[in-house]
């Protein structure tokens, strides 16, 4: 596990002085190294032809139904404010373009790590005086898919600066820790055995660049956290709640691993 070992090491000052001074000159915290799969390969590249065709055609892609619903929610007044998303943000095609590519991110006001779902609910609370939408609810999936869809084609470029670093470090730790009765970590499938077959499925690099996705197995759209919970279930580990700190940290780490991949939302997967 050279990658894990590297990532776990504190740089030796003498040996890495040149690199460190470069980093110090840039005024940033030490940058994480290049993700192990670089350039990253999207999960769609491991999908069958029919799934790829379904995703590529907006009229065949069932996820577009959630995007369309999200477009309606975007225009609707919500909460005691009576304000819609559009009332502040205007045209999502302009205002939201590229936004999803930067999530999850640390909220400057609270130092909390927020993913897109969390940002939408934060906006509802602070700007719309509305109740939060339940994780995995149709409305939250729809709004998330709609907002993320505005970034389709934009390369993921999540920030892992000093503010994000503690979240990132925890996410990385989760990625490499064995868990559950199957005693497996994310790395064992999605880093060490990419391209191999788990029964009929080809193991991908496990990137989240297409979420929310429409998953044929679910017959529904679903969030990245729902998919992550399915992996926890598969290794017979305790499942953290969708929206929990643990899954947010992991989402940030995964987003960093997926840097450069285009947002595909709404993706289609088996």
């Amino acid at each position: 596990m050279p990658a894990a070992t590297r990532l776990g090491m504190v740089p030796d000052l003498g040996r890495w002085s040149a690199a460190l001074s470069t980093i110090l000159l840039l005024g940033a915290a030490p940058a994480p190294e290049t993700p192990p799969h670089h350039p990253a390969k999207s999960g769609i590249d491991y999908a069958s032809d029919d799934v790829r065709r379904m995703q590529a055609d907006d009229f065949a892609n069932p996820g577009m139904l959630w995007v369309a619903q999200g477009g309606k929610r975007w225009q609707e007044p919500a909460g005691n404010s009576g304000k819609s998303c559009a009332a502040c943000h205007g045209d999502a095609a302009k205002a939201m373009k590229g936004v999803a590519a930067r999530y999850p991110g640390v909220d400057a006001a609270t130092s909390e790590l927020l993913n897109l779902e969390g940002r939408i609910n934060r906006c509802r609370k602070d700007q719309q005086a509305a109740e939060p939408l339940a994780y995995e609810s149709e409305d939250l999936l729809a709004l998330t898919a709609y907002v993320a869809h505005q970034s389709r084609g934009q390369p993921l470029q999540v920030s892992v600066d000093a503010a994000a670093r503690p979240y990132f470090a925890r996410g990385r730790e989760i990625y490499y820790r064995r868990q559950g009765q199957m005693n497996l970590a994310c790395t064992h499938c999605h880093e060490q055995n990419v391209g191999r077959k788990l029964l009929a499925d080809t193991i991908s690099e496990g990137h989240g660049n297409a979420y929310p996705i429409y998953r044929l197995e679910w017959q529904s759209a679903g969030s990245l956290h729902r998919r992550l919970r399915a992996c926890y279930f598969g290794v017979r580990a305790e499942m953290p709640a969708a929206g929990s700190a643990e899954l947010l940290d992991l989402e940030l780490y995964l987003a960093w691993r997926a840097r450069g991949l285009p947002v595909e939302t709404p993706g289609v997967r088996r």
Partner: protein
Amino acid sequence: MAFMMGSRKRAVAGGVMLLSAAACATVSDNLVPYQISGDEIRAPLAALAGDAARGRDVLMGRDGNCLLCHAVPETGARFMGNLGPPLSGVGARLSAGQLRLRIVDPGRLNAESIMPSYYRMEGLARVAGVWQGKPVLTAQQIEDTVAYLQTLR
């Protein structure tokens, strides 16, 4: 290495292991002790006799789910994984005792193995409630699987 941080602590290295279930204390949930000799567990668990036909069911069914990772062409299954080595002819390559240890606790032979241990409860982290206090397979299922794998020659 980072992914080994959760690696198990061996209570009794290379010797007799006597483990008891912490929860769900039915008799069948308890692990019977076994003796490791070299890379084998020579004696059948609990002195049970294995049944190859039942072992094939364990291997192909949801309890063992071996085909998720291993190809066993002899089963005639349509889909088989390849995370682990193909098991065709494994009965000629490995003894019953070698097969037994490789199912019971492959981490004994290779701490970095991705293969789960099918008869171990200690050293695991964050096991979901319904699986706590029980091994993946029972001693009888292990013996049945060993018996089936021995027919693959």
